[in-house]
Each structure stands twice: as C-alpha cells, then as structure tokens.
C-alpha cells in the first residue's frame, strides 16, 4: 500500500478550498494542507512539501509558483509537471472547471487521477452554488427595486399597492420588458426629476 499522498490546496476562495478539502477527506485523502492565500505562497509550499498541488486556474500567484517549482527542481525536489498529457480529455475538463494541478515527477497517473477528478467535481459544485447565490441575490435586488417603484407610484398617483403593481406589469407587457426594468426606469426618473420629498 502506497503511503499517504500529501495534497496542498491553493485557492483565492477560502470557501472553495474548504469544499475541496472536505471532498478529499471524504474520499480518504486526508493528508491535506490548505495554503493561506494571504500569506507567503512559496514559504508555505516549501514547508508543506506536497506531492500534489491543486490551484485554481486563475490564481494570480501561478507564474510565481511555476518559477518556484522550476527552481526547486534545479535544487533537489522535482515537482513541476502539469497533469499527464496522455489524458487530454480529463485535463480539458479540469481547465473547463478552473482547476490547475502540479504533481511530483514520477507520481503514477492512477494515484493522481482520482484527486483531479474529485477537485473538478468540487469546483463545478462550487460554481453551481455561486451561480445560484448570484441569482438569488439579483432576485432579491429586483424585488427591492420593484417595491420602491411601487411606493413611488402609490405616492405620485394616489393609488394602492395592487394598482401600482398592475400599472408596472401592464407597462412591462406593452413594452416587452421585464417588470424589474420598468421599476428601474421609474427609480432613475424619480432620482432625476423627483421633488426629493
């Protein structure tokens, strides 16, 4: 049985780093080091001595990291390869998901692949969560905009809330726009032309 493989996780998002480490742990890969994105990158990696480094594709420290790997290979420790070229499809999936990886030279593909596959799934899950969160946030923001537009209409026209909403909805239908867009226009015109009262 091969000894435990140490995996370092470098991610600008601490939430995503946590999601990935949870997944790796569940899969029995529990020799993990999560690198503090605010701390010195190279010193932390040097101290951790990992066999695999998972890093988000768009991490701003990647050029620096690659220089460090090249330099450390020149000294003693060979750690500098991207995932195996022979598995282009899996690598493509990793790039699509936003995962990049460096592994110690000579580490077998059978041992690396499950790690990469798992990281990819976790990255994808994270993007899905984020998308849902963004949608929820924008839905909330839209509702607030519509509420404010309704309040303006109620005050200006002396109508009640259902009537104000019906007015917004009718205008949206006539102009084939979304209710939130009509509400946005009302807020804008109020800001420009309202009496400020």
């Amino acid at each position: 049985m091969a000894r435990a493989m140490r995996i370092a996780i470098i991610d600008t998002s601490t939430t995503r780093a946590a999601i990935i480490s949870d997944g790796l742990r569940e899969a029995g890969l529990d020799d993990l080091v999560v690198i503090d994105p605010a701390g010195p990158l190279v010193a932390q990696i040097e101290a951790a001595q990992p066999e695999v480094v998972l890093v988000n594709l768009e991490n701003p420290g990647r050029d620096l990291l690659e220089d460090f790997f090249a330099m450390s290979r020149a000294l003693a420790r060979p750690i500098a390869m991207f995932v195996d070229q022979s598995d282009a499809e899996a690598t493509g999936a990793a790039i699509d998901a936003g995962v990049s990886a460096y592994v110690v030279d000579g580490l077998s593909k059978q041992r690396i692949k499950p790690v990469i596959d798992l990281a990819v799934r976790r990255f994808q899950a994270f993007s899905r969560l984020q998308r849902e969160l963004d949608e929820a946030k924008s839905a909330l923001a839209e509702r607030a905009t519509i509420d404010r537009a309704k309040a303006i209409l109620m005050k200006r026209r002396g109508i009640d809330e259902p009537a104000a909403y019906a007015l917004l909805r009718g205008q949206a239908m006539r102009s084939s726009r979304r209710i939130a867009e009509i509400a946005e226009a009302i807020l804008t015109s109020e800001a420009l032309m309202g009496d400020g009262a």
Partner: protein
Amino acid sequence: MTGETFRIGFLPLVDAALPILAHELGFAAREGVAIELVRDMTWATVRDRLLYGHTDAAHLIAPLAIATALGRDRPAVSLAVPFVLGLNGNAVTFSSALAIEVGLGETLGDPAAVGAALKRVAAARKAAGNPLRFGVVHRYSSHNYMLRYWLAGVGIQPDADVEIVVTSPPFAADALAAGEVDGICVGEPWNSIAVDRGAGHIALATAQIWRRGVEKVLAVRSDVVETRRSAVEALVRALHAAAARFVEPGTAEESADILARREYLDAPREAILRAITDRIRLVPGGAPVHYPDFMFQYREAANFPWRSQAAWLYSQLVRWDHLAFSPADAATASAVFRPDIYRAALAGSGAPLPGASSKLEGGLAEPIGAGSTQGRLMLGSDRFFDHRAFDPDDIPGYLSELP
C-alpha cells in the same frame, strides 16, 4: 470566407493591441474571421487555456512558446508562431530609492553607464546580506532574458549577485510600490503606472538592450494550424492590417481609448497613449521623453517570425536554465517560428516578404536594404548594447563567448 472564430487569450498589456484592434476596428471581420478575447492575469493561465483548447490562439511571451514546445517543466506541446505581435516595448524600472542610489538622471542613461553604477550598489547590497531583488514577468519571458543579458553584460551575475523573482505584469507595479522588489522589468503600461504612482523611475527601455528584440507573439497549437490553416492565414492578414493602422499617425488616441477600456487593459488612457507614441515619463511628475521605436509593431517587417529570433531565445534558455546545447532542441525551438505561414498569408499583398527565414541578429549598425521576394524591405539597426552579434548557425560559439 469561412466565418471562423478565434478565441484569443491575452494579458492586460499595451502590446496586446493588435488582436484587440483587429477585432474592434473590423480588420478581422474583413478577413472573414471573428475574434473573441479572453483576458487573464498570469501567463500560466494564458498558456494553459491555449494548450487545452479553451482558446485557439494567444498573445504570448515568445520564450514561453519555445519552452512549451521543448517540454520544459511539463509534457511538450508543439506550438506555432505565424506572426510576431511586436518588438520591445518593455522597460526596466527602479524603485525611487534604488534610482537615487544609482544616480539615475532625467533622461534615459547609457546601459553600460547605468549598469556600472548598478554594479556598485548590487555589490554593496550583497555584502550587507540584502541583495538587490528584481521582478520579471515569467521565468520564460523576454523580460527575464533581456534583464539578465544586460546584468551579465555589465558584470553583475544574475544568479549570484542579485535575486530575480517572478511577478505577473498586473502585479509588478504593486510589488515595486510595496518594496517587495527593487526593480521590475515589465511591459507597458505597468512601468508608467509605477512612475505615475511615484513608486519608481524608469531606468532603461529594453530597446536599449537590444534595439530590435522579439517580444510578444501570436501562438497557436500546431495541430490547430494543420486543421484550420486558411483561417489562421486570414487571422495573420487581419493582425497585419491592424499593425499598419496602429502605427499610422493620428490613430494613437483612438487606439489608447480602446485599449484603456475595462474589458481590455482597464488602465489609465494617458499611460497607454504615452507608450504607443514612444513618449515615456521616466520620473514622477517629469515631462515625457521621446524615445523612438520604444514599441515597434510594424515597420521593417517587424511581424515576420524570423527563425533566428527563436534561436536566440533558445540560446538564452540554455544559458539561464544551465542546460547543455542540443542541436535537436535548437531545431525544435527554431521551428516554432513559422515564416512559411506568414509568407503564404501575405503573398499578393503589399507587405514586404523577406527572402530569408533567418538572419544574423544584432549585426546591423546602420539601416540597410534586405533581400525580399515581395515589396521593398529595409532593416534598421538591430544592435545589442554590447555590440555582440548572434549567428543562429553557431549557438555554441555564441554561448561560449558570453560573460
């Protein structure tokens, strides 16, 4: 035409201008190709997107294309460079403190004289156990090679007398301002941003180190060239037209307006405009200094991928990675540059096409007419600051004579 799309990766730098302008000003559409630009913050990401098909082409530092084809630090992937996006356009910027210690003036100094002064400071700092530290944009960048060429040429050993670290272009000015490095070698607008922030003084333009140094290239995977050859040629024509436009008098303002936009450089228009017009503000608050051919995007067939340029970059890779010269690697490196595609793309246009694919680099002190199969080709002085010349057919001889 084919109506094909090229996704092109780039970093926020002034020399990403040609693919951006080819897209924005309709040169790509005129050639029947569409360009989608993909902005990143590190060269590693630009390269990975290119290698794994996220992008079809990339604005890339030339040595990284060669290192990738040679499989340095990763499995080799064959790349093709059918078009050079420009020569030079980079600078070496010192922190304000180092500028004072070295005694930088209000004009660009002579590289040998600035180097001699720097050598004294570097020696003192090394003796004090606090060696000077320089930031370059990538291990495999022309910035790293130009800076090292200059340092070694003035008697400063890059691996022993100073430290050279990596800082991606968008973070270089920050690193200088934060005191993490004493100097940076980076492309524009990042030197100018450092100066405008009061964080540094521009010491040299890289064009002073090598008057016609190869800089960014358009890199495409070789298998993509095979399968989309006619579309790649159309893209080359679009970029060539954009280059002609870029250097036309009176277009600089428009180019700067476009490049400054959030989706491209997201950087101050004034700094970009200075770079495009070869007017460089060297010291904070100073009047810009005109340094002709600071950037070199079109004249003298500047976009032609000379195999001798690739060979020079290979010679520096051997030099600084401490490798043994390999004729096979030299051939692989030279073959990354693809003058054949450039010629095929621009045959029948007015563009001058060099007759040769390789030349002596650094051999010209004066402008001279050069052999061409189409158009009239003039080449200007292409000297290195130490007046050495590089013969691509004798790389071992060249390396043995370098300091």
